[in-house]
């Protein structure tokens, strides 16, 4: 069998890159990690992702794929062990719907609450509260979004498990609070998974990074 070559272009802190790491670890796939400096993008990154010039990029036997959710589906179709999508088309659709909801609604609203000021921040917080309600509802009767085991949606939401506490610490404002007991329980369960425990960026390093960003965006008056 020909040697398989799997490379992952990411950064140490990229929450989208981390999803791909989790999927590769879940399936026991060996890969070379290439950490990019986004202030000085490598020629390789620009060659492999000319459209977005972003991480993550998965390169499988020389062929590049960008966009983390597209990469996750590719990984699932190429390496069949420990599937992250169910067989049933309706259940698959549900996983895709919620992964999309995280990327298009939940994450941007929480990011807005972190980065914006004044009225824009209030609107972002209001949106986040709405979005979190839906997520909480979806978790009723389930351990993970995927049921008993994690799936695509869990990988998409996974950033909450290690990054929300960083945002809480930096801003002094708790966005995922006791109104969302199921989500808080899910965050605990997710962070205890071997793939998460062994593969999250160091908390202290994240606090330093986001503290610096926060101060830059919200200079003390």
């Amino acid at each position, binding site marked *: 069998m020909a040697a398989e070559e799997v490379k992952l272009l990411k950064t140490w802190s990229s929450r989208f890159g981390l999803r791909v790491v989790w999927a590769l670890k879940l399936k026991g796939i060996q890969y070379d990690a290439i950490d990019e400096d986004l202030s000085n993008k490598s020629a390789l990154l620009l060659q492999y992702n000319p459209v977005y010039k972003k991480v993550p990029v998965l390169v499988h036997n020389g062929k590049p794929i960008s966009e983390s959710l597209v990469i996750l589906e*590719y990984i699932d179709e190429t390496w069949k062990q420990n599937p992250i999508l169910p067989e049933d088309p309706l259940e698959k659709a549900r996983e895709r719907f919620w992964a999309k909801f995280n990327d298009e609604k939940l994450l941007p609203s929480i990011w807005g609450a972190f980065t914006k000021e004044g009225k824009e921040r209030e609107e972002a917080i209001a949106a986040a509260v709405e979005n979190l309600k839906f997520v909480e509802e979806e978790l009723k009767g389930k351990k993970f979004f995927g049921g008993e085991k994690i799936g695509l949606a869990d990988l998409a939401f996974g950033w909450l498990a290690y990054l929300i506490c960083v945002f809480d610490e930096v801003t002094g404002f708790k966005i995922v609070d006791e109104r969302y007991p199921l989500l808080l329980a899910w965050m605990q369960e997710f962070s205890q998974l071997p793939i998460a425990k062994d593969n999250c960026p160091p908390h202290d390093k994240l606090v330093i990074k986001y503290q610096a960003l926060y101060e830059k965006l919200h200079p003390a008056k």
Partner: protein
Amino acid sequence: MAEEVKVFGTWGSPFSRRVELALKIKGVKYEYIEEDVYGNKSPLLLKYNPVHKKVPVFLHNGKPIAESLVIVEYIEETWKGNPILPEDPYEKAMARFWAKFVDEKCLPALWKAGSSPENERAKAVEEACECLKTLESALNGKRFFGGDTVGLVDIAANFIGYWLRLFQEAAGHDLLSAEKFPALFKWSDEFSSCSVVKDSLPPKDKLLAYFKAHIAGTKAAETNASN
């Protein structure tokens, strides 16, 4: 066993037409329910799509699915004839990548180019042209993005295939032209005239009138805002 397939949509929405197109490609019979999304969303729509409260919503034997590209992938996996995605996982990933690019970059850029306030117009048009240029290169000499037949990316790009020409007529600009983007322009003709597509497009006059009214409404709001 009788299959129950329903689509909740609106006549002018490219998103609900994507779902109808996928069903037509697969020869699946369905019931269509027109929603009044501006005036009066039906209780059924709000029940079946409580998260987004939008069309399209797809109902298969009572089970609802929302988000047009999620629905299209469900249709692909449920009815196997006339596939709209390639078998090969890498080619499939490329199709999904381009469909996402259309949804997340092209469509917002095109909409902005036609409805931005004057002072933002030039930048919006430039961004829209960049998107069309990228899409043109993705076509890469093929008849359709899907190759010889309409596939996922063609379905996702339906706004560009048909709606855009009317939108730009209403907005008074010329983003997609044969001179600037010959391959994409030709594709839009191929797409909107191919048999499975052409009978399920909204009527030209009605759509043009809708866009004209929308753009006039945006301009009026701008004028009021600056007075």
